[in-house]
């Protein structure tokens, strides 16, 4: 063996030893948390936004920030010697099957102590099933199917509002609009993607429409990867609705908007969710997306009533170069609530974390959202979570409802396509 080779061998061996030692020393200081998001596939752009929200939250937990937010003023988890949170991301490819397999992998081979996120209800449903079976706490803040918290799971908690609250808020808004503009808006059309999320949204809307005395004039499920939606829009058109309530992901939101314009489908009140909130939507459809009223839990213009929102938005802007979207803001919450629980538990034991999660009572001024706080009821749903409605005006989202937090006047009715 030449001298050079011997030296090289020594260096390699030494670095391996150092690396191993580093790993041992480091292991006690890092808490691994798993997150499954659609990072490839047709919902990948939205998955990326969720991931950004989670990453910013982790920055705030691990660093020291002068923000009036839980876990911001301390570094890491103080009760565990300042241990840092590390998120291990996995790709669900938008598929419930892959999501579940990845959740299992994160838990069994990456040894994460808890899970957050998921975004698609269909994926969260299977991923959280894996977590529950392996007794790992799962804190969700970005999927909304009501069914998720109605399975009697012990380790599953949801911070954000679900679609029961959303459906009620939608009809409350329509009623408020009827009063404000003195016009009957009783004919409602439901349009929704046909997986776990969209179909459960529609189920809730049907229920609340009955409760509030609205008439469902069209009820249209569709496949969100469709190449063409002409027949769906023609059905809508012939039902002549006053209000459209649409539950899409982003690609179908774009396709429907283009088809509405192409076939001249006009509706006085155009309401949407999720896909419409993805910045890719406005970028792709441009002016054609104007006046859609979208449900959200967050909007940068709320900084006017809650300065914390402005500060966090600035941090986000510095990191990613654009405003924080409602989607990123929603995913931002789960890591904070989880870190707070781990801190209070002072332990990584799943049952200890679960126990303190149940006792969670975070006041409204310590969280990003404009809610009264975070407190879980017996099905582990945050009782203080609620929605706001934003409207796209001039290529931006503006808060328009509830009236008392509105920054801008709602534009109604939506002008016909030929008058835009």
């Amino acid at each position, binding site marked *: 063996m030449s001298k050079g080779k011997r030296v090289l061998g020594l260096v390699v061996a030494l670095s391996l030893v150092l690396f191993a030692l580093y790993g041992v020393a480091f292991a006690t200081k890092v808490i691994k948390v798993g997150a499954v998001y659609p990072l490839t596939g047709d919902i990948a752009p939205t998955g990326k936004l969720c991931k950004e929200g989670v990453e910013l939250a982790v920055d705030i937990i691990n660093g020291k920030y002068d923000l009036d937010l839980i876990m911001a003023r301390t570094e890491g988890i103080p009760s565990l010697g300042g241990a840092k949170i590390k998120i291990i991301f996995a790709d669900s490819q938008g598929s419930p099957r892959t999501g579940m397999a990845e959740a299992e992998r994160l838990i069994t081979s990456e040894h994460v102590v808890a899970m957050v996120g998921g975004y698609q209800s269909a994926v969260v449903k299977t991923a959280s099933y894996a977590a529950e079976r392996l007794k790992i706490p799962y804190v969700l803040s970005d999927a909304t199917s009501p069914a998720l918290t109605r399975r009697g799971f012990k380790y599953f908690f949801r911070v954000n509002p679900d679609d029961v609250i959303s459906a009620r808020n939608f009809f409350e808004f329509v009623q408020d609009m009827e009063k404000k503009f003195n016009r009957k808006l009783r004919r409602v059309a439901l349009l929704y993607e046909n997986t776990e999320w969209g179909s459960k949204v529609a189920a809730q809307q049907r229920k609340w429409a009955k409760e509030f005395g609205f008439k469902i004039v069209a009820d249209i499920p569709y496949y969100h990867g469709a190449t063409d939606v*002409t027949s769906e829009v*023609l059905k809508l058109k012939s039902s002549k609705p006053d209000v459209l309530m649409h539950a899409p992901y982003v690609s179908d939101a774009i396709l429907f908007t283009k088809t509405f314009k192409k076939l001249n489908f006009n509706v006085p009140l155009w309401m949407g969710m999720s896909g419409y909130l993805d910045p890719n939507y406005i970028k792709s459809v441009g002016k054609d997306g104007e006046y859609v009223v979208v449900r959200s839990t967050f909007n940068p213009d709320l900084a006017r009533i809650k300065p914390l929102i402005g500060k966090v938005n600035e941090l986000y802007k510095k990191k990613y170069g654009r405003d924080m979207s409602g989607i990123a803001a929603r995913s931002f919450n789960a890591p904070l609530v989880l870190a707070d629980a781990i801190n209070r538990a002072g332990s990584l034991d799943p049952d200890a974390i679960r126990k303190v999660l149940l006792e969670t009572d975070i006041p409204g001024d310590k969280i990003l959202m404009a809610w009264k706080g975070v407190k879980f009821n017996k099905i582990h749903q945050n009782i203080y979570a609620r929605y706001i409605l934003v409207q796209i005006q001039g290529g931006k989202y503006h808060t328009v409802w509830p009236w008392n937090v509105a920054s801008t006047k709602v534009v109604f009715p939506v002008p016909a396509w030929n008058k835009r």
Partner: protein
Amino acid sequence: MDTTNLVQAMVSGLLLGLPYGLIAMGLSIIWGVMNIVNFAHGEFLMVSMYITLGLYTFWHFSPVMSIPVSAVILFGTGWLVYRYIVSKVMSGPMLAQVVVTFGLSAFLQGLFLFLFTGNYRTVKVSGILSQSTNIHGVYVSYPQVIASLITIVVTLFLSWFMKNTMTGRAIMATEIDRETAKLMGIDTEKVNALSFGIGLACVGIAGAILSSYYYISPYVGLLFGLMSFVIVALGGFGSITGAVIAAIIIGEVESLGGVLVGPAYKYALVFSLYLIVIFIKPRGFFGW
């Protein structure tokens, strides 16, 4: 359901179906000549859409202007893909042939996701490409009309080309009987490469024109690819006019069926039709 909506559904079905035909035609030629299932067909459509987006972004080409460029680039790509990838497995087992194009499709999706992120993009068109017209309450969008006309032109050209040129006849001969074609002095390797090129050129044309009214993302080819498989199976392997006619039928079933039976069932209708046809006529309407 009033008549206007019914007519609208029929017109929309036709305008939807014809461009499907252009995509399927390419698949049909490749399939017919080489007996290879090109699983990456939808992904090549995606590639041509990104080419159109690039030409638009850097040189303000309108999608119509990028048709020839995209067609030529995709033709070259097809030639190279055949020469350096597909030809290697031509004599190998069937499974290798399936896996090679399948792998290519996953590779292209991954590559474009890496290069351009998963974001949705659109080509901002102006002038006639952004307009639609209203004929007695039936809305017709110009870009779709243009796409349909181009499909018809390409169909007529290819049919003429196959019957009336030496190269076309060589392709047909190889399609019918490879061994005899070889004995007659036809360079079948060259025919294969040429057919792969022509097949992808069709997709190049379709992708360019589709960009004027469809969004672009690394996964846009998935359903288009699947639809073209069904169309080819329906129209008959290797048949150009068969592919176009089957595409129109599929477009009508999707659109008209969606309106009459219910939008939720439209893909179920399309695929049931496919199943029925392969039961009755396994080689498709116009197959050899």
